């Protein structure tokens, strides 16, 4: 056990941070209906420097490197679908020749981040995973306040795409997606807490910075602790990506706690946090999107219980 980044890991963190600081063109506000949204230059820069292929070899450390890239993407609020391409797709099908922009769909007709812009959609359809290309599906952009561009992906009649990932594809996709979700939520939380921290440090009321009031400081400190725990759970899940429980735990904790962080950072920032010109919403308005993916928070929590205790004396008394 050693939790400080080694030279290679630190190099990934630093390089992706620098790259996104220069290449990324963040939205000034929530995506509008029909907005392209996806930041192609930033995605191309990540791909060109090999950061979308850090997990291509499939070793545990490689998956962890992918999570480090995902964290940095969210900490920059970059408009690039990193997780699907850097972690999920290569874990599902190494050597498949994945394009740069991949969407993840939890059933036919579901809402997909960057759904209108991606090159390929991976559709979790019951026990199988299908690779859909543009001719396989229709896209309905979603009008939304959220800080990801969203679109509903609907499989065209008579089309089904191509099955990928073998007999355990659904389980593999679920593990990787859960780990990625946890990392994305962790990154969004870290950034949101930092934006709020900077604000309460300089914003004065009653003659002093509002961050010096315990009522403010404690909420933000609690959010900070949550963000740190999410970060570590996502990293551990990536290290042991074949472990169903670690991935479900990471997603469960992140999705159970993210709303608290959302509430706390907006509360301490006050009304300015509502505004599109203020930086906070670029991260917080991603959180509801992430919470709604892959069945939602209760699905992950129920999975933890079933993975941990179903094989013991525990039955299936509670319905899904």
């Amino acid at each position, binding site marked *: *056990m*050693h*939790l*400080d*980044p*080694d030279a290679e*890991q630190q190099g990934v963190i630093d390089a992706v941070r620098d790259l996104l600081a220069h290449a990324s063109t963040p939205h000034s506000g929530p995506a509008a209906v029909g907005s392209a949204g996806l930041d192609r230059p930033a995605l191309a820069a990540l791909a060109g420097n090999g950061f979308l292929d850090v997990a291509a070899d499939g070793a545990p*450390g490689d998956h*962890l490197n992918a999570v480090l890239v995902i964290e940095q993407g969210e900490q920059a609020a970059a408009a690039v679908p990193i997780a699907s391409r850097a972690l999920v797709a290569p874990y599902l099908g190494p050597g498949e020749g994945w394009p740069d922009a991949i969407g993840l769909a939890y059933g036919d007709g579901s809402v997909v981040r960057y759904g209108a812009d991606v090159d390929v959609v991976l559709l979790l359809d019951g026990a199988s995973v299908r690779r859909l290309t543009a001719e396989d599906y229709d896209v309905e952009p979603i009008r939304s306040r959220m800080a990801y561009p969203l679109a509903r992906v609907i499989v065209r009649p008579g089309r089904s795409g191509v099955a990928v990932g073998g007999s355990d594809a659904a389980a593999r996709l679920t593990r990787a997606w859960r780990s990625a979700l946890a990392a994305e939520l962790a990154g969004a939380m870290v950034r949101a*807490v930092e934006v709020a*921290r900077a604000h*309460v*440090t300089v914003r004065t009321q009653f003659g*002093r*910075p509002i*961050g*010096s*009031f*315990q009522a403010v*400081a*404690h909420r*933000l*400190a*609690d959010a*900070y*602790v*949550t963000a*740190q*725990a*999410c970060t*570590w*759970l996502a*990293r*551990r899940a990536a*290290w*042991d990506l074949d472990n169903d429980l670690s991935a*479900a*735990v990471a997603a*469960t*904790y992140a999705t*159970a*706690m993210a709303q608290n962080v959302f509430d706390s950072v907006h509360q301490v920032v006050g009304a300015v946090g509502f505004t599109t010109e203020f930086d906070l919403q670029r991260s917080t308005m991603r959180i509801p999107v992430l919470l709604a993916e892959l069945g939602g928070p*209760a699905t*992950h*929590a*129920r*999975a*933890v*219980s*079933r993975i*941990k*205790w179903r094989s*013991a*004396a*525990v*039955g*299936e*008394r*509670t319905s899904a």
Partner: protein
Amino acid sequence: MDFDWSPEESHLRATVRQVVLDHAPPDWTSRSRDVFTPELLAASKRVCRALADAYVWIPHWPAEYGGRDASVWEQLIIGEELWGAGEPRGPQYMNTNWVAPAIIAAGTEAQRDRYLPAIAAGDVLWCQGFSEPDAGSDLASLRTSAVREGDSYVVNGQKIWTSYAHVAQHCFLLVRTDASAKKHDGISILLVPMDLPGIEVREVTSIIGPHAVHEIFFADVRVPVDCLLGEENGGWPLIRKVLAHERVGAARFERASRVLDQAMRSLPDGPVDEVAAGRAFAACEAARALAYAAVQDRGAGRDRSATANATRVGNVAAERAVARVLSDEAGQQALVAGDPADEQLTVSLPVSISSGTLEVQLDLVARLGLDLPRA
């Protein structure tokens, strides 16, 4: 970053677990740690001696004092296995985790010779005289006085909320030796024999259980000056380090996780609320993740990190989440003293108060982790 345990670390874990299986009473619980009967006290000493026989009692101590300079990760593993089993070392977990390390760090050679062999033998009990009726979260405002008279300090005052005072032979006592100095600068540490004339211990009866907390009264207690640990008036910096040790040593998440696991496996028809149970388990794992980050910081010598305080915050959430699940599942059975849900309630109650309140931890996270301005 590397999340794997080495073969040596896995072997250590297996060894500690086997000692617990072989020597700890099967009905030992977290409440037993307060050794409120002679039988519990004797059982805890047997476990300590068995750990010593298996060379897993003080591996993190320096080799010259009987340890082998083991890493903080090994100390964590021992803490996980023993807290997970309800801490069958009883009060002596404090001895190895922070009392002895404090003596090693700041004691004289004579003090090390006097105190460490008994601790290493697993046969001596200490308590910590920290809190006072008017010095709780603001510990540095403590008023128990120690006035130098010849070759003694004359101690007067009162300590409260003290665990293990009913059985302890020594007290790691915080006293004020300079009333005129700024409050953090006038504090010293005395290693006080509990059989000195003028010391009186009274149990404070509580809803936690027998002998959970005590008061200690000091009336003109003459403590030899060679019981001073470190510099006179230099106790506060040492205490800060001591508390950091304590926070890492208590693997509450492991105990809470095992209690949850046992409860879920014992339910005949499965958990009624799988979502709550899953979230409670995840909360335990989150606290574990925070604790590991704290261990990493401690091993790297990063003393001004918020991770130890963050771990305490995580532990509070984990203990409470498990208590909630067990209470909900048990229904009215949770009202019966000794039921696992009842035990978990009483364990989770003080976790946000003892060893520094949750609010103090959040203050420190705000300052150390977020660099927020002071009030």
